C-alpha cells in the first residue's frame, strides 16, 4: 500500500513540474514583467524608471528563463522562473504584487472559511442526492420517475447565478429569514453559512440526482440483483441493501476527487455571499490584476487536483477488493 502511494506520488512529479512551467510561461513570457508593472502602476504616464524600480522591488528584474550573465548553476537559478516558480514546489508562495502581503499566510488563514461552506455542502449534497436518486430508481418507469427526471433537467438548465440571486432575494430580503451575505468568527458564522449551503445544494441537485440514478440503475441491471430478486427478496430490500452498497463504489470514487477542493472555495459563492475564503481571495486578486496571487492559486488548485486523483485511486482499492495495488 505504502509503496503504491509513493509510486503514485512519483507519477505526479512530472505533472506538477509541467503545471509549474506552463503557468510560468503564461505569466512571465506571454505577460512580461514590464506589462505587469505597467498594469499595476497604471497604464498611462509610467516612466521606464518607475517600471524598472517596480521590477526590482518585486524581484522581476532578472531574465525570464536563462541568465547568460551568470555562471554555473546561476544560469538557471538567477532567473524569474527559478526565483518565482521553484519555491512553489515547496509551497513558498511569496508575496503579492500589489499589497506585498504574504500569500502563504493569507491562504492558511482563509481556507477555513472556504471549508466551512464546502464541507457541509459536500456532505449534504451526497446524502440528499443519493436519497432522491434512490427514490427515483425505486419508482423507475412510473410517471413520478419521468417527472422527477424532467424536474432534474429543468434544475440543471438554470444558471447557478439565478439560484444565488433568487435565494438572496426570497430568503434574505423578502422573508428576512437569513442574512443576505457576510461572515463572522466561530459559531456565529453559522447563520451566515445556511443560505450559501442551501443555494449550493439546490444548484447541485439536478445533475447529482440524475447521475446517481444512472449509477443505481446500472447496478440493478447486474446478475447478483437478479439473483436476489429470484430468491424472493422485496424490491426495497434489493435496492437499499444490495444495490446501494455496490453503487457506493462509483459514487465514492466520483466524489473523492473533489475532497481536496473543499479548502479551495468557490469563486462565485464566496463573492456573492462575502465569505472571506480562498474563492473571494482569488476574485479580489483577479479584479486587482495581482498576478502573483492568481499564479499561486492556479498552482495550488493543480496540486489539490492531483491529490484528489491519488485519493481516488486509493479509494478504489479500499472500497473494491477486486482492485489490487498494482
Amino acid at each position: 500500500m505504502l509503496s503504491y502511494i509513493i509510486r503514485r506520488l512519483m507519477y505526479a512529479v512530472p505533472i506538477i513540474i509541467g503545471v509549474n512551467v506552463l503557468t510560468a510561461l503564461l505569466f512571465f513570457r506571454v505577460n512580461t514583467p514590464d506589462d505587469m508593472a505597467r498594469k499595476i502602476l497604471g497604464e498611462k504616464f509610467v516612466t521606464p524608471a518607475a517600471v524598472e524600480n517596480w521590477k526590482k522591488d518585486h524581484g522581476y528584474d532578472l531574465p525570464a528563463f536563462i541568465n547568460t550573465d551568470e555562471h554555473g548553476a546561476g544560469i538557471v537559478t538567477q532567473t524569474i522562473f527559478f526565483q518565482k516558480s521553484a519555491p512553489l514546489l515547496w509551497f513558498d508562495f511569496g508575496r503579492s504584487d500589489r499589497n506585498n502581503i504574504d500569500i502563504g499566510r493569507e491562504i492558511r488563514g482563509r481556507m477555513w472559511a472556504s471549508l466551512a461552506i464546502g464541507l457541509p455542502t459536500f456532505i449534504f449534497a451526497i446524502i440528499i442526492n443519493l436519497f432522491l436518486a434512490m427514490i427515483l430508481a425505486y419508482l423507475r418507469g412510473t410517471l413520478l420517475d419521468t417527472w422527477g427526471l424532467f424536474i432534474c433537467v429543468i434544475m440543471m438548465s438554470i444558471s447557478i447565478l439565478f439560484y444565488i440571486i433568487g435565494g438572496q432575494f426570497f430568503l434574505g430580503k423578502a422573508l428576512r429569514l437569513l442574512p443576505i451575505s457576510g461572515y463572522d468568527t466561530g459559531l456565529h458564522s453559522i447563520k451566515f453559512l445556511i443560505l450559501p449551503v442551501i443555494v449550493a445544494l439546490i444548484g447541485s441537485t439536478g445533475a447529482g440526482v440524475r447521475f446517481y440514478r444512472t449509477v443505481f440503475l446500472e447496478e440493478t441491471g447486474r446478475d447478483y440483483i437478479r439473483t436476489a430478486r429470484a430468491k424472493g427478496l422485496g424490491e426495497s430490500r434489493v435496492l437499499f441493501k444490495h444495490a446501494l452498497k455496490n453503487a457506493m463504489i462509483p459514487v465514492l470514487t466520483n466524489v473523492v476527487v473533489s475532497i481536496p477542493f473543499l479548502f479551495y472555495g468557490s469563486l462565485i459563492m464566496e463573492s456573492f455571499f462575502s465569505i472571506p475564503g480562498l474563492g473571494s481571495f482569488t476574485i479580489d486578486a483577479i479584479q486587482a490584476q495581482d498576478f502573483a496571487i492568481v499564479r499561486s492559486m492556479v498552482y495550488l488548485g493543480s496540486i489539490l487536483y492531483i491529490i484528489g486523483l491519488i485519493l481516488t485511486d486509493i479509494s478504489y482499492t479500499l472500497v473494491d477488493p477486486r482492485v489490487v495495488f498494482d
Partner: protein
Amino acid sequence: MPVILATDLIVFLVTGGAIFMAYRSTRGNGAVLREIKQNRLAAVSLVFLCLYLGTALMDSLRWRDVAVDENGAALITEDGGAVYESEALSLLDRALSGLRTGTEKSYSAPFASRLFVKESMELPDGRVTRGYPPLRYPGTHILGTDKVGSDVLYTAIKGIRTGIVIGTGTTLIIIPFAIFFGVIAGFFGGFIDDIIQYVYTTLSSIPGVLLIVAFMLLFGGKGFQGGLVSESDVFLSVFVPNDRLFWLCLILGITSWTDLCRLIRGEAMKLRELEYVNAARAFGVPGSGIIWRHIVPNLMHIVLITVVLQFSGLVLAEAVLSYIGIGVGPEMGSWGNMINTARLELSREPVVWWNLFASFLFMFGLVLPANIFGDAVRDALDPKLRYR
C-alpha cells in the same frame, strides 16, 4: 460593406453543419431522426434550438452602411473612395430597429406608459413637480427598459448570438485537435500515447476557471476599436480576431478539449483491436488509411454526443464568467452581463425585476431545449449510455 468577425464564421460553420446533419439524417438509417420523432419533447426542443440558431445567424450577417452627412449625401474620401459608418449593423439590428432605437430615459416596467423613476416635470402652467413622466414609446417595451432606457427584449435577443457562439464555437475549435491527438494516442500507443496523456493530464489538472481567468486577463484586453474605416480593412477582422468572444471560445476550448481527447483515445484503443481493423491491416492498408476509413468514422458519435452535451454547460459558464468580469465585454449583449446588472436592481425599492426575468427566460429557453435534445441525441447514438 460586409464585416465578418471570426465569431461570425463560427455561426456560419455551425449553421452549415446543422444543415448538413439534417440532410444526412434524412438519408442513411436516420437513427437520430427516428429517436427525435418518437420523442415529442426533443422535437419541440429542436424547433427552439433552430429558432435560436436562426436568430444568431441573422445577428451575424452584418454590414456597414455608407456614412452620410447631415444632408443625406454620401461622404467620400479625398480620392473618391467611400466612407463607411464605424458601426456594422447586423440583419437582426435592422429588423428590430424599432426596438433598438426606441429608447427611453431610464427604467420602465413592461408595457408601462410612464417611466419607473420619478423626475422633475414641468406642468403646462409652468410649475415644476416630481412625478413619473410619460414614455416616448408607451406600451412598446414588452419586457421594459433598463437603466439607460434601452429595450430589455432587444438586449436579451442580442444575447442569443453570444450564447450560441460560446456553446458551439468552443467545441468547434477543439474538435480537430481532440480527434487528432486522441486518435493518434489511442491508435499508435506507446511513446506518443505517453506524451499526449502527459499533456492533457497536466492541462486538466490546472483549475479551469483560473486558467480561463489568467488567459482572459492576458489576452482579452483587446476590445473592438471603432472609428470610421476605409474599404481596405473589410476582412481584416476575420484574420485578426479582436473580439473578446473569440478569445473566450478559444480558452474555454483549451480547458475542455482534454475530456473529449480522453474519450476519443479510449475509443480508438478499443477500435484498434477489432476484427475489421485487423483485416484492413492484413490487407496492407497503411495506418493513416485505417485511421481515416475505419477509426474516425466510428468515433464520430462520441464527438457529436460530447458537442451537444457540452453546449448547455458552456452557455451557463459564459454567464458565470461575465459575472466575474472576464466574460465578453460590456459592449456586447450577453445574458451574463444582464444578470450582473440585474443583481443590483433587485435591491432597489421597488424592485426592478424585468432585466433578470428576461435573461432568465432567454437563457432557460436555450439551455433546457439543449439539454433535452442532447439527451435524445445521446440515447439515439449510444444506447449503452441510455438512461433506463
